[in-house]
């Protein structure tokens, strides 16, 4: 389960960034803090007696950024794991599949959005097989329609607004 690299594959370095993971994590937090502070800038801070809308977001943004600075500093002082390789394939196809689902569910309905999202997402796995994936996606979509639409009566569009007028029934 551990996602940290073992101590053996650390690169020994005397100076500079000793923990790439923490360094990047710190920069990420600093960016979030700055962004949030910039967004909350225009909101009134108020006084402690009567806090304005901006008081909490602004102070939290500052604290997040300070935490980020702390991480950057420790990453220069203490050895730790390097930044891991990112699985771009998995991320692209999984999140892409979800976006495809969101874009097609209203217009094309679950009959298209379901298999589309599932097959697209499946490509994210190294073990992807076309035929298996398509068959599985179609069967699962049928099960979903039966379960969510017929049995549980959720208002999910099965046949979307584009397909509906074209179909003969």
């Amino acid at each position: 389960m551990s996602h940290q690299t073992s101590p053996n594959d650390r690169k020994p370095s005397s100076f500079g960034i000793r923990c790439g993971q923490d360094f990047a994590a710190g920069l990420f937090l600093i960016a979030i803090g700055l962004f949030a502070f910039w967004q909350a800038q225009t909101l009134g801070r108020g006084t402690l007696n009567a806090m304005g809308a901006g008081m909490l977001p602004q102070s939290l943004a500052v604290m997040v950024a300070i935490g980020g600075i702390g991480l950057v500093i420790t990453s220069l002082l203490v050895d730790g794991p390097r930044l891991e390789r990112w699985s771009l394939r998995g991320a692209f196809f999984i999140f892409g599949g979800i976006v495809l689902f969101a874009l097609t569910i209203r217009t094309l309905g679950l009959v298209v959005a379901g298999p589309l999202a599932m097959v697209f997402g499946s490509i994210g796995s190294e073990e992807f097989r076309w035929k298996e994936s398509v068959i599985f996606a179609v069967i699962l979509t049928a099960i979903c329609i039966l379960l969510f639409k017929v049995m549980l009566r959720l208002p999910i569009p099965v046949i979307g607004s584009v397909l509906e007028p074209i179909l003969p029934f």
Partner: protein
Amino acid sequence: MEAFLGNLSLGFGTALTLNNIFFCFIGCMVGTLVGVLPGVGPIATIAMLLPITFGLDPTGALIMLAGIYYGAQYGGSTTAILVNLPGEATSVVTVLDGHQMAKQGRAGVALGIAAIGSFFAGTVATLLIAALGQPLTKLAQLFGPAEYFSLMIMGLVFAVVLARGSILKAICMILAGLLLSTVGTDLETGQERLTLGLQDLSDGIDFAVLAMGIFGFAEIVRNLENPETRDVVQRAVGRLLPGKEDFKQSYKPILRGTFLGAILGILPGNGAVLGPFAAYTLEKKLAKDPSRFGRGAIEGVAGPEAANNAGAQTAFIPLLTLGIPPNAVMALMVGAMTIHGIIPGPQVMTKNPDLFWGMIASMWIGNLMLLVINLPLIGLWIRLLKVPYRMMFPAIMIFCCIGIYSVNNSTSDVLFTAFFGLVGYTLLKFGFEPAPMLLGFVLGKLMEEKLRQALILSRGSFATFVERPVSGVLLAIAVIMLVIALLPSVRKGRDEVFVE
């Protein structure tokens, strides 16, 4: 005592209607299923099933959702023992000795003792909730805004102390979670905060969306990059009922595990996850021959299993009595209650006594069901575990998409979930634990409200949090915990506990 019995009989009266038994059964089955399957947790499942509960009556809905949660604890141990993979985060330690027992042909005994230990722990925890419910509710009514705020601070500190890995990173995650909770319209001034001008964010970020993105989708991507090696036990499961000798060895660990788990579970800040670790460490310390641990010691299964189930149930106490969710699953329960117009907190017990006691009684019934249905179904679970992940994750994906879409019938919710999935994946890559962030997010709104109220009452003076005795004590506990966790010697010990 009379009131206690009266309450329990009201509870069983509610829980034993045909309808509620059915929902309890469904919840337990679904819970076991997601518990058995590694990579699907109760958080994603409950978020997914929220829309289905819209049409149910509140008692039935909550009984079902609670069943999913504690059912998952049972299912998680099945996977831990049979596959050498924790089905749930709380069954991590069960893997150590449980799978060894399975390799020695004693899988059945390990499963049996896990189920019996869990059932015993569940029974005790149910009674504990029933007994503590009333006094804690009375206590809660004495709490003012300052006390509530300090209690939540204490909860967050516990979450930091109990999180794995770096304390600084856990604090950062809590702060990020609190920051996320401020997104949306400010309740007092009506101003939009951090919404980036997006209409969909003016009501704030939906908890189900955040939880599903971070615990559902980010996990899938993470699982895809480390291809798992599933080592499903090929040998016969063996007899299920533990023998006399097994019982003799495990009844004490079960008692100790139940006690530890129940206490830790009550703590705000998700103490329940620590229960199994603590129980395992304790058993190893107390054992005459600690070297047996890790090689199939039955105590190493009995103690932690009792602890995780006890903790899973006592985690309901802060929610039901104080209205403070101690972990992400409980936060989803808050969501489910709010949908049905019930505001969690001390008033639930007086306003909806049948719901309160019905839910508690259903937990015991659910535990009994799990004991009965789980063991005969082991063959089915083994077959299910042989389904490869490349077929499982598209199914998880589509269920999550349908679930999220149905909460508000909104496609932008689905898009936000994808976005938070990406954020969650990034956080995992940076070595952050997402659980503290979720807790910060969950408590954020309530904390801000109480902070504002307390400061208005004290005319802007922070001293009120220290001067009021109860609030001061809570903050003192929080500070002491944090200092202890930062001590070098304890830090080392803490790392060891999590490494084991």
